[in-house]
């Protein structure tokens, strides 16, 4: 396996790089879109259930089907990487809009009431109080979305662009295990690393969580 890596380091690195791009770009797009959508679901309670149901339906569509269905809607080429980015963004939004809504709903009403009594207006209440308090829930959703995006990207190789998935098809065509194993290991490592980074971010943005745990015990 080391042998294969040293002989094909350029290919593997290029695949890895493409994989990171294809997986993380949708996470950013999806996260940015999910925040306002999730907020709407809380702000207008009648929207909550339709929103959750739509997200559930979108999330249940198999990835390969979505990759191949999007060209009709977007007018893109069937083998375009844009389809993969959009498809994974849709999954991310579907997953995160719900977590954002649930996170915001889980904020203790006494906290929001206290903030309102202190003179917080709606926008500042949301940005300075509700969002930070909901952050652990939202970031837990973000971890799930990121990890599953990273593993889904490789399916894209069936339509020609799949980051590390290219190693799978290459190995499969040659009936040669090495590239497939390397692809799987790198993909899992990448997912683990991304997960770890989000955990560290969570620690940084919710410093009170550590004190609470230490203080209460």
């Amino acid at each position: 396996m080391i042998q294969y890596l040293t002989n094909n380091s350029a290919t593997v690195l290029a695949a890895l790089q493409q994989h990171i791009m294809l997986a993380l770009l949708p996470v950013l797009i999806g996260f940015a879109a999910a925040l306002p959508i999730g907020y709407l679901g809380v702000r207008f309670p009648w929207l909550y259930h339709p929103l959750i149901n739509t997200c559930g339906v979108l999330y249940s569509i198999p990835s390969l089907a979505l990759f191949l269905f999007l060209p009709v809607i977007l007018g893109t080429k069937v083998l375009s990487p844009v389809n993969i980015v959009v498809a994974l963004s849709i999954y991310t939004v579907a997953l995160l809009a719900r977590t954002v809504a649930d996170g915001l709903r889980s904020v203790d009403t006494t906290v929001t009431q206290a903030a309102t009594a202190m003179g917080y207006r709606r926008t500042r209440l949301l940005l300075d109080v509700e969002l930070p308090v909901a952050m652990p829930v939202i970031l837990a959703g973000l971890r799930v979305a990121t990890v599953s995006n990273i593993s889904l990207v490789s399916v894209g190789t069936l339509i020609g662009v799949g980051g590390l998935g290219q190693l799978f098809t290459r190995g499969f065509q040659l009936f040669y295990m090495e590239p497939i194993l390397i692809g799987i290991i790198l993909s899992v490592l990448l997912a683990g690393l991304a997960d770890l980074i989000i955990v560290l971010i969570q620690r940084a943005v919710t410093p009170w969580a550590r004190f609470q745990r230490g203080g209460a015990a």
Partner: protein
Amino acid sequence: MNFSYLLDPEHWDPDATGGFPQLLLAHLGYSALALLIGLVIALPVGLYIGHTGRGSFIAINAGNAGRALPTLGLLMLMVTLLGLGLLPVLIALTVLVVPPILTTTYAGMRALDHGVVDAAKGMGMRPWQVLTRVEFPMALPVIMSGIRSALLQVVATATVAAAVGLGGLGRLLIDGLSVNDYSRVLAGAIVVAVLAVALDLLLALTQRWIVSPGLSGRAVARTRRATTT
């Protein structure tokens, strides 16, 4: 947009090889078989870990590991190791089904109100009775959510498995791509998407039906409605 393949009645003939009914049936067959094997493995292990608390490390991390594992890579690895055929694909599908069920079964058992379990013991229930009559029914909503995500996973992966030679609806996508017949690809994508959504809905309804009404809040709502009117 070209729906000619999807709407061609010839492709809906139940006897036609490669027609929708046969592909659908094959697809459902693989998925159901893998889900069944996965349930037989994951459910008892999850219940055991949840009931005793032993080996919880495995149950917690199984879900994450399963999510991180690239499905296509696993499929192609299995086929490369074991050769073409149904068995390697079935193994790969089962490997994907186990983690979500295992993790949610454990999580459902752990999330139970301890007072209820203690009360059951206090009433003289044996450990087996506590498990089957109290813990399992109460953990069922969470377990069902795991089974639902496992089913979605397996239906999606069975589609991808056409790339390693498996039959089923994925054939329309893979074959359509290779001969540049987008009408066929689109037909396959639509049928697969509809199948996944329909199956998820079906399981959601099953969940409503098998979860005790006392747990879902429906019984409370019913009595409340009855008393107010």
